[in-house]
């Protein structure tokens, strides 16, 4: 098992603050087997998770850092390959079922091919799956006449699960629900009572359920992002079995973040403005006083691997963006090109009617920002 881990860990790449496209590109640049770690703001997690899922990553798992302002997403590459039978099976040790990143819905015991069996022995799955060893005779055939294996059982497994969950008792309404997020490594879990929890989505569940499924509790400031779980049987009836494969939406989280800042700058944002480098404070004050809508910086964040023309100023400004003190707009361009980024205060960058964004001045936010910037200036 450790040897298997080492193959993936030998090609580990880390990127900081990537856009979804940058994360995707970094993942595609990995060799056939490898591991990508991407550190991004909490608000960007769904977009990055969706990009990595789409790029063929598996065992995607994230951890929360910096008091829930950032997440570190780890994704493995290496699920390409044919499916051959070596008699292996996997059992999910959690709730009713788990959906992995390769269209396997593990309901009870699932027969898996040699490739999937091998992937399931890797470290992200080790605590949640039990995998049987390969049959020696079938394994020996891999080098001569491998036995094909039909992994395409998702539809049948979805229907079986729906039938199993049709009459399951729903949770009692008076139980206290709290806000949690499921960090992976599965794409989605189906709890014993039929509720569906998707990786990365903030949901309301009971504390004991969260503990059983390795979920992470959201802090009070983020609790409002959580939504009730949908139920498997109902969703299956309405949208068909494929609903479980629906990609994660990212619009909700981003809109929420913008809505929060539109109301004015909050503590962390104001603290970040106060702590900004002196020359940059002057630049922002000049922007406010001259009623300029935005400033443009070229170069990349020195913390982002592979970016061209690293700039300490971009690094400093991006810290303000992460703290919610500024908003950024990068015109669409491939990740390897030299980037020019537009910066404005939160809620000042809006979708334009033609090409690119439109800018509007938000007096209240600018007044708050100016006060914070003048402190110690």
């Amino acid at each position, binding site marked *: 098992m450790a040897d298997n881990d080492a193959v993936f860990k030998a090609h580990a790449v880390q990127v900081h603050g990537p856009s979804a496209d940058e994360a995707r590109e970094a993942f595609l640049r990995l060799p056939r087997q490898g591991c990508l770690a991407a550190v991004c703001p909490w608000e960007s997690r769904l977009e990055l998770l969706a990009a990595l899922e*789409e790029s063929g990553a598996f065992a995607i798992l994230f951890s929360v850092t910096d008091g829930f302002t950032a997440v570190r997403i780890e994704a493995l590459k290496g699920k390409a*390959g044919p499916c051959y039978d070596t008699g292996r099976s996997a059992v999910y040790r959690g709730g009713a079922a788990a959906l992995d990143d390769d269209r396997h819905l593990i309901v009870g015991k699932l027969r898996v091919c040699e490739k999937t069996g091998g992937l399931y022995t890797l470290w992200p799955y080790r605590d949640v799956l039990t995998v049987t060893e390969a049959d020696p005779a079938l394994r020996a055939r891999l*080098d001569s006449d491998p036995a094909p294996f039909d992994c395409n059982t998702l539809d049948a497994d979805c229907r079986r699960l729906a039938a199993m969950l049709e009459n399951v008792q729903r949770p009692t309404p008076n139980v206290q629900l709290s806000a949690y997020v499921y960090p992976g490594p599965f794409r989605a879990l189906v709890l014993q009572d039929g509720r569906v929890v998707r990786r990365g989505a903030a949901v309301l569940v009971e504390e004991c359920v969260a503990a059983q499924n390795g979920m992470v509790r959201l802090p009070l400031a983020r609790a409002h992002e959580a939504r009730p779980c949908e139920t498997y049987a109902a969703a299956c009836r309405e949208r068909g079995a494929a609903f479980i494969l629906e990609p994660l939406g990212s619009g909700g989280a981003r809109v929420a973040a913008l809505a929060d800042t539109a109301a004015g700058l909050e503590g962390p944002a104001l603290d970040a403005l106060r702590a900004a480098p002196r020359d940059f404070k002057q630049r922002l004050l000049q922007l406010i006083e001259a009623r300029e809508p935005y400033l443009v910086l070229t170069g990349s964040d020195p913390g982002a691997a592979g970016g061209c023309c690293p700039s300490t100023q971009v690094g400093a400004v991006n810290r303000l963006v992460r703290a919610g003190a500024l908003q950024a707009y990068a015109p669409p361009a491939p990740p390897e090109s030299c980037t020019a980024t537009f910066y404005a205060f939160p809620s000042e960058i809006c979708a334009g009617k033609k090409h690119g964004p439109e800018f509007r001045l938000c007096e209240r936010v600018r007044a708050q920002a100016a006060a914070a910037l003048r402190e110690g200036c």
Partner: protein
Amino acid sequence: MRAGADGERRYLDYAASAPPYPEALDAQAEAARRWFGNPSAGHAAGRSAALELRRLKTAFARALDFPDGRVVLMSGATEANNWVIRSVMARFPQGRVLVAADVHASVWQAARLFEARMDVLAPDRTGRVTPAALADALRPDTRLFCCSHAVNETGVVHDVAALSALCARRGVLCHADGAQAVGHVPVRLSELCCEFYVFAAHKFGGPRGCGGVCLRWAGGAGWLAGGEQEDGLRAGTENLPGLAGAAVALGRSLATLPREAERLRALACRLAAAARGADAACRLNGDPAAGLPGLVSLSFAGLDGHALAADLDHQGFEVGTGSACAGSRPAPSRALLAAGLSPEEALGTVRVSMGRLTGEIDVDAVIAALTATVRRHRG
């Protein structure tokens, strides 16, 4: 050259180059007009070209079920095959390359640059490279295995899934030349463990000058001096219009693939049966019922394949004699010798490869012409 008896010339050399889809050429021209900006330039025209290039690459990759790697554009499969072998051999100066004996000349000649570190794996009597033979041939210091997905001379389709999976288990990089396969047989790269899968657009009805490698390897470097295009792997402004045409051609090919494969295999079987019925010494290379759709390789021991092809050409039938790239050489085909043919048989080989514009009437005509020509050459 004059036309055939019915006044038409018949192109039957699709394996060398397929007639382009008109829509592919339209897409190429439209892209050349619209996305003229250099994708490396930072201005709006350059940025929009770069975005279009990426969109096209994503679409192309999706058509090959290749979500998890990069599409690196090159001038064609020959350059791509050379790039793969030179890159890997440079990365592993002590490593060996194992090459299937029936590969295209671009793979073979590139590997021969490292002759002292080159091993050869012969196919079996049916023309197949088997996992068992590969398992035996891999040495502890083998770093790269090269094979064709579909063999250009015999039409044999190798089980690249099994071969690449075996390479992966042994820690050997796998390079599959898919130039003949893409657009003609199902290619799902998510089911192959290849680090390198090479394609050429003109083989599936796309424009010439556009090919490349589907890449899952991080160890390569560019060997053309110049810009940092393709992540530094291939200098030179990317052929965006070519890729636009290739993407359309691939889409068209895949849309009709199941139906066309069945139709072309039936035509190929008919031609093969007629040829063998007409000449007792005719040997059929590969299996037209299961191989590359529409490809029939026939060896007429004692005859000169080039003379047969020239005669057929004179009658309006454009056929190949094996590898088009080796078409002017009198030497017997390496791939045919590897498949167990005698030099005499190999030299008497003609290859008829059909495609989307080939109909029953063409097959009837070529059967009549081929059988008559063989009879005449036998004296």
